[in-house]
């Protein structure tokens, strides 16, 4: 593809998108990301198609990604010619007739299910503007800017909304070193958990010998309560592909690999479809935009292993081996996938790159606070009224997240804890409302922002029970390579289970600390080094919960008295081991 061709493509895309989104035929969009899918969006879509064909209504239909308001799914919106987009929340198949009959044909809004309108034009009276909903108003969408608005794998829709112009700008007007400087200046830090400056990370790969070098994108995303990587790939995979290609250009890499956990079917399908479209339109492959830059992207899958998200284990998995972490040094920049120089980035980190290049580093660094620039993509779930996938500016307080975005703790209960940054992260107590989403501030508070998951726990959550579930997860997901993690997690789980079963032994707390200390100092990778984290932070914030279990044999919330559902117990061959009930 030459430079002229891209201009042509851009024109074609603009015309296509103008006709589709603002033409004479209504455009109906439905959110079919995981949240929508789980809420029944495909049943709604099927019904919608049936009704439209039965009634011979001419309308364009797109499956789109997640607008962030997961609580409102299935979320349907109708853009009639001359009208704004009108959103219908929590739609079921039964509501379709009414919506089509009422709004599409007769322009009368149903009494329920109407969430609001977005855009300009004739406004139905009873509808409120979407901007007034906190879940929209408080968001500042960069990586997710297209999510919920365009069909995910459709390259033309993406180009029409400004897509690939960042890559175009980088390749045609900038030197690779300028791209890296731009990313460094933006202050972008890796969103995978370690918050390492992305530009600096990229610069490690620049000096490594080629010609074959890999940029890897990590979408293992196995944390319970984290779905923002999957959200991006499902809602707007082209953003990632563009970011990956920019990273490839900046670092001189020849290949990009998007690593997705086996079983994340939506992200896998949509990313693969997007890659195909990108190749078809000449946006990937040989001599992109007529330059010397050639770049290939493929999707690699792995077995279902949490540790495969660790960067060196991920490389083993890409090579088709058992996903166990390697030791370092040698570091990936010297010896990565297939022994070639490699660089691993999180989906989110890469997805910021197109906008940073398009709009400049100053624009990006102006967003956020302190050393945490840009936005945070929060996966809000748990005991909260409005769970969702919210992209907000860094620096928002956790209180705003829970109360404003999330609409408060569900059932009018009190906030007890926030579990952040995945199971290896930690828990924060009820006094954490004033903590800002800031990598460094969260870390000093004893938690990490990590991958962005925030699970809200109400007063009904027992800290011991929650700890048990988190530890069981960490134990189950240990790869089994290094001794401290393989054996330590096993014993930690056993002790926590003992406590939650009111069968604790004297000295159990100290024993946990000593095993945890061994794991922390001795483990090979982060999984074992952080494996004691959930217990330590639970003990710090909720020591009383532990005390009442140990000393009084009482679970204050009663949840430890109920039958326990835990991940499969993988202690060695102890199938008959009593686990809870």
């Amino acid at each position, binding site marked *: 593809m030459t430079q002229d061709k891209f201009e042509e493509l851009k024109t074609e895309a603009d015309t296509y998108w103008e006709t589709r989104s603002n033409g004479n035929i209504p455009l109906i969009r439905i959110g079919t990301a995981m949240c929508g899918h789980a809420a029944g969006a495909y049943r709604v879509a099927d019904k919608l198609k049936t009704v439209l064909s039965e009634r011979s209504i001419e309308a364009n239909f797109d499956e789109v990604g997640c607008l962030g308001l997961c609580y409102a799914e299935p979320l349907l919106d109708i853009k009639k010619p001359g009208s704004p987009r009108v959103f219908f929340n929590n739609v079921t198949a039964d509501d379709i007739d009414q919506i089509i009959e009422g709004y599409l044909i007769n322009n009368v809004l149903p009494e329920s299910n109407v969430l609001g309108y977005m855009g300009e034009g004739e406004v139905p009276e009873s509808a409120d503007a979407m901007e007034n909903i906190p879940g929209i108003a408080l968001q500042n969408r960069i990586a997710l800017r297209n999510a919920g608005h365009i069909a995910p794998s459709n390259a033309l829709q993406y180009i029409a909304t400004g897509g690939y112009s960042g890559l175009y700008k980088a390749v045609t007007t900038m030197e690779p070193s300028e791209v890296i400087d731009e990313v460094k200046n933006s202050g972008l830090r890796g969103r995978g958990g370690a918050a390492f400056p992305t530009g600096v990370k990229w610069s490690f790969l620049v000096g490594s010998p080629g010609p074959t070098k890999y940029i890897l994108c990590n979408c293992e995303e196995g944390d319970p309560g984290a779905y923002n990587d999957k959200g991006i790939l499902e809602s707007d995979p082209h953003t990632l592909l563009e970011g990956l290609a920019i990273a490839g250009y900046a670092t001189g890499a020849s290949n990009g690999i998007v690593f997705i956990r086996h079983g994340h079917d939506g992200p896998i399908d949509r990313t693969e479809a997007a890659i195909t479209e990108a190749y078809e339109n000449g946006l990937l492959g040989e001599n992109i935009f007529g330059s010397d830059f050639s770049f290939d992207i493929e999707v690699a899958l792995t077995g279902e292993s949490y540790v495969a998200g660790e960067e060196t284990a991920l490389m083993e998995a890409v090579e088709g081996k*058992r996903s166990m972490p390697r030791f370092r*040094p040698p570091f990936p920049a010297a010896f990565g996938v297939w022994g070639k120089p490699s660089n691993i980035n999180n989906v989110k980190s890469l997805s910021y790159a197109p906008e940073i290049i398009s709009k400049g580093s100053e624009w990006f660094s102006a967003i956020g606070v302190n050393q945490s620039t840009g936005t945070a993509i929060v996966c809000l779930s748990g005991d909260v009224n409005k769970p969702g996938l919210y992209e907000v500016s860094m620096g928002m307080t956790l209180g705003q997240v829970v109360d404003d975005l999330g609409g408060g703790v569900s059932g009018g209960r009190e906030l007890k804890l926030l579990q952040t940054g995945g199971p290896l992260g930690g828990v924060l107590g009820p006094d954490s409302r004033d903590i800002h989403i800031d990598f460094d501030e969260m870390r000093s508070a004893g938690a990490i922002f990590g991958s962005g998951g925030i699970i809200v726990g109400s007063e009904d959550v027992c800290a011991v029970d929650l700890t048990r579930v988190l530890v069981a997860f960490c134990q189950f997901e240990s790869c089994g390579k*290094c001794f401290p993690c393989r054996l330590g997690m*096993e014993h930690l789980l056993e002790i926590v289970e003992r406590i939650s079963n009111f069968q604790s032994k004297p000295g159990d707390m100290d024993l946990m600390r000593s095993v945890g200390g061994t794991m922390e100092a001795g483990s090979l990778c982060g999984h074992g080094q952080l494996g004691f984290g959930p217990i330590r932070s639970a003990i710090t914030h909720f020591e009383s919960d532990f005390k009442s279990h140990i000393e009084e044999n009482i679970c204050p919330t009663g949840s430890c008295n109920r039958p326990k559902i835990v991940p499969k117990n*993988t*202690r060695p061959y102890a199938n008959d081991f009593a686990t809870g009930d």
Partner: protein
Amino acid sequence: MADKINLTIDGVEVQADPGSVIIQAAMDNDLYIPYLCYYPGMKPYGACRMCVVKAEAPTPDGSYRPLPGSPASCTTPISEGMRVETNTDELVSLRKGILDLLISEHPHGCLNCHRIDLCGPTDVCLRHVTVNDRCVTCPKNERCELKDTVRYMEMELTTPLTYNNRHLPLEVKDPYWDMDMNLCIVCARCVRACDEVRGDSAITLKDRSGRSIIGTSQGTSLLESGCEFCGACIDVCPTGALVERDYKWDKAEKKVTSTCPHCPVGCQLSLDVSKRNKIIRAIPERTAEANRGMACYKGKFGLDFVNSRKKIDKPMIRNNGVLEETTWPTALDFISEKLLNYRNGEFALIGSPRGTNEDHYVGQKFGRDVMHSANVDISSNTHPEITKPLGDMTGRRTSTSRIWQLLDTDCVLVVSSNITESQNVVSVPIKQAAANGTKIIVVDQRETELTRYADIWLRPKVDSEIDLIGGFMRTIIDESLEDNEACQSCGEFTEFRNSLWDYDLTDIEATTGVPQDEIRNAARMFANAENASTIYGLETISPQIREHCAKAIVNLALMTGNIDNGPSGIYPMFKGANEQGARDLGACSEYLPNYVATGESAVGMTNLIESLNSGKIKAIEIVGDSPTFDEDQVGDFYKAFKQSELVIAHDNFESALTEIADVVLPSSTFAEKTGTYTNLEGRVHCVNPSIGPSSEADEEWRIFSQIAQRMGASGFEYRNSSDVFVEIQEKVSSYTNLDLDKVKKNGQIMRKENQDFQFAVVTRAEVSGDTTNSEYPIIFAPGRVLQQPDRDAGIDTSSDKNTITRTEIVEINASDASEHGIAEGDNIKLEGQGFSMNGIAHVNGIHKGMAASTSLFGSLVEDLANSGDNDPVLKSDSLRLRKVRIEKI
């Protein structure tokens, strides 16, 4: 070697090789850091975390920058000026924490039993009912690295962690090895040894987190998983999880390093000898240059014959048709008296490939000087053509490079040699090299393990190899790929080059059945490689063309400059363990000592039968060491032996040979001998007596000396084998450089003679058009590989031994198939002389007149393990081509 790196470990200034990791640097300087998953020579793994240290590296401003955390010393590279602490309180407590976790799942009665101080070293406490976790129930008790480490760390063993035994059933159904996964610490040494060192993936890590454990890669049995039963996994296992089944519970009273008697690699094995004077285990020596810690199924599991109670223990003389035991003086007197009658060329002496250099030397001296007979040979010398042309053309009498230089070669050409089974350890560097990108070309009718690694596998028609190699050489000349300098420096290059014009590739395509393009590609691959090596065994090639074939192979190496040049060598693959020594010392029919030709008239293995039948040989003395006289190769020996007037047999066991012998002398096994072996590289190793004399068996050199002295000869007054060795050094020029101390320590390469290289003109042989007679019209090429992942092995696990139950597939040519009314998938029967097998027909593009089948190595091992034979490995099937007929059943 680059400059050494200086660093400080625990205050001690040490030097180490650049690129080492800390633990290696410590080991090289005799400092100990506890470790469990690391193993010298294998890549670091970093799992056990026992070898953690504190380290700091100097910065340019003179200060020291500490490495973060407690890095594992097995994965941390050393740097100049580094300071390492290995025993701080913090590190010790971390190690103890990890060991606490480890013994919480490892049975540790051996460490904390209350009877530890009460029990003597040989006590068996099985009647002590209060002990339920016993040291004696671990096969590696007192050989366990975990136990040693726990003791070194002075653990108190008072952890409150729950003890959690895995309660897994033992896996004891596969041949030779026992697997007790309750003792496994999941260090994955075995998996890495199998994968990384041996290039097999027979065992693997399975499951995850606390359940991760070792298993076979196919999940059922080693027989189907690609195991070559080399025992490398057992050798590296730190605990009792993997052990040799035989003598599992026996303890070593002493350890003796000796040389394996099964093939010419000359593996150095550390032999464990029990108090009952048995060899209970063989552990390859890690530092030995010949085998570098490797062994194979023969050396690891095939030495039990020395422990047999069926060994002949007294001399016997046949009296009225019955062998009667007698004393040595009587037997020797009898022999020396009898032999006086056959001192004019009517006597033949056949030595054993397991004889030491001392045996060979004295034997040939006796045969030649006392018996005045040139008829001296060893029983494995059935393919003298393997080495003779190489010697004639280059003066090299051994492989021209060393075994482990194959690691650095860029291309390996393997012609008609199944080294995986015959000289197994040679295949290890080849497989490792292949994993690093070395190209492999295999020329063989049989599917052998190396064909699975081959970039190009050529399967020519039977006995068309000369044409095929000629095709290589013609391509190289046509495309000017030869090494011109090397060619010009060899004699007779012009004649040689002119002889190649006869090799027309179109014609060769017809005679070999191999497409021209493939021949050209292979030739280019070999010629373009910077360093190429050639391995040849002539195993499938008929006797009448072997010599020409070997010449062609040597020509190919000469013209590409791939001979005697570091990692580009030529390796003749004969089979006898000390056949090399026999040739060097003149104990073969072709040569006197120093490779002086004997002339045409000498009788050797190739013409022994006709000489016996014609009455030329009337008396024969055979050092049996239980030889295999291969019927197809050299005819029916036993029938011929009966023709002779006097048969003297030296042997370990009663055999078909002793049944016809007039005198039987008990012969020592290698385990009772003192002497030297020479391996295929020309490396002289010591053979040391590991088990003491258990019978009256004696070594050949002493027996021959005594007979010679009784016959009035002088020059046989040797007191011990060292006297013989001294004489060898005087008489044999290539052995003059040897220093017995060096030989004893790690083996020493004998001196190589320098001689100008010569090409040999090889005319195209008539490819013996129809060698098949009407009764057996098909030539059957049996193949064997370690694993066929595409085909189910059909393992029957129902009895107490795993067995392979599948029926083999037989490849046949379409026209042969239609001639016999055979269709794809039919059950067919192959029958030859003393051979029969059933199979399923697979009609494909194999040459007309040929059939082939590929079995699993597992079935060979199964046969060996279940064999009732005294020395099963010696008689293991060698995959030779057979003439058969096929029919549908």
